[in-house]
C-alpha cells in the first residue's frame, strides 16, 4: 500500500498563525500529517492551556470537520450537530487544563469528549427512532468521494480515511454492525443483542474479534503512515 501523498502546498496561509515550537517526537498517531513546521496538536493544546485563543482557532480549523462528522454520525441532525460542535470546542477551551499528554493524544481526547457529548445528547432527546431512519437514508445516499476544493490537509486526511476504512471494511458485516452500534450509538452489549436479535455471547465475541482486528490493523497502518 502506498504511503499518503504529500501534495505541494497551494494552500492559502492563514492571516495570523501562532508560531509555536516544532512538533516534538510523540507517540505515533493515525491522525493526518501536518505541514512541516506547523505546530503539533500537543503544541496547540499547551497554548490553549496558556489561554491563547488563536491556538483554539487553529485546532478548530484542523479538526472541526472530523468532530462534526462524528457528532453527525451519532445524532443525524445538521443544526444540532453545529450547536454541539460549538459547545464541544468551548468545552475543549474550558477543560484544556485537564488534558495530559502522558495520557494520550489531543485528537483522541477530543474525540472521546465529542462522542460522549453526542451520545448524551442523543439519549436526552430519546431520538433513537428518528436517528435510525436518517442513518439508513444516509447510508443509502452517502457519496463515496468528498471533493470540494480539497486543501492539502484534507487530501492527506482523505488518504488516512481510506486506509482506516479499508481496515474496518475488512471485517465481517456482523462485526462492523456490532462495533458501529457500540461506538456511534453508545449501545451496551445487551442493547445490541436485543436490537440485532443475537445471543449476548455472540455480540461479545463479535465486538472482541472486530476490535482486535481493527486494533491490529491500525498498528500496521501506523507503520505505513
Amino acid at each position, binding site marked *: 500500500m502506498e504511503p499518503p501523498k504529500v501534495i505541494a502546498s497551494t494552500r492559502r496561509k492563514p492571516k495570523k498563525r501562532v508560531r509555536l515550537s516544532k512538533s516534538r517526537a510523540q507517540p505515533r498517531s493515525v491522525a*493526518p500529517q501536518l505541514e512541516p513546521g506547523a505546530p503539533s496538536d500537543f503544541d496547540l493544546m499547551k497554548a490553549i492551556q496558556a489561554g491563547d485563543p488563536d491556538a483554539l482557532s487553529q485546532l478548530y480549523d484542523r479538526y472541526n470537520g472530523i468532530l462534526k462528522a462524528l457528532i453527525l454520525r451519532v445524532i443525524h441532525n445538521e443544526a444540532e450537530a*453545529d450547536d454541539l460542535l460549538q459547545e464541544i470546542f468551548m468545552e475543549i477551551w474550558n477543560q484544556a487544563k485537564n488534558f495530559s499528554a502522558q495520557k494520550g493524544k489531543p485528537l483522541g481526547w477530543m474525540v472521546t469528549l465529542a462522542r460522549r457529548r453526542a451520545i448524551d445528547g442523543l439519549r436526552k432527546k430519546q431520538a433513537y427512532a428518528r436517528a435510525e431512519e436518517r442513518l439508513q437514508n444516509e447510508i443509502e445516499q452517502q457519496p463515496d468521494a468528498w471533493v470540494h476544493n480539497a486543501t492539502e490537509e484534507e487530501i492527506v486526511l482523505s488518504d488516512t480515511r481510506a486506509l482506516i476504512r479499508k481496515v474496518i471494511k475488512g471485517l465481517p458485516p456482523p462485526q462492523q454492525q456490532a462495533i458501529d452500534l*457500540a461506538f456511534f450509538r453508545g449501545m451496551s452489549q445487551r442493547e445490541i443483542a436485543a436490537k440485532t436479535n443475537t445471543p449476548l455471547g455472540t455480540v461479545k465475541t463479535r465486538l472482541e474479534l472486530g476490535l482486535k482486528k481493527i486494533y491490529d490493523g491500525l498498528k500496521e497502518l501506523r507503520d505505513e503512515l
Partner: protein
Amino acid sequence: MNFNEFQNQARLYVIGALEPEELEEFETARTKFGKKGEEFISKCYALHEAFALSLRPAKASSAIKERLMAMVKAKQQA
C-alpha cells in the same frame, strides 16, 4: 483474568461496551496489571481516533467558529 483477556476487555472498555459486571472484573484486573495495563488502555484510545477519522469530514456552518471565538473572548474579558 490473564493479560490477553485483559486486552480484549480493554478494547471494549474504551468504547464503553463493557457490561456492569464485566466492568467490575476489569477494574480489578486493571489494578493487578498496573502500569502495563494503563499503557495498553491508552493505546486502545487510538480506536476512538480511528473511528472518527474513518468518517468523511462534515462542513460546519461558518457562523459556528465566529460564535465560538466570540464566546472565548467574552470569557477572557469577564
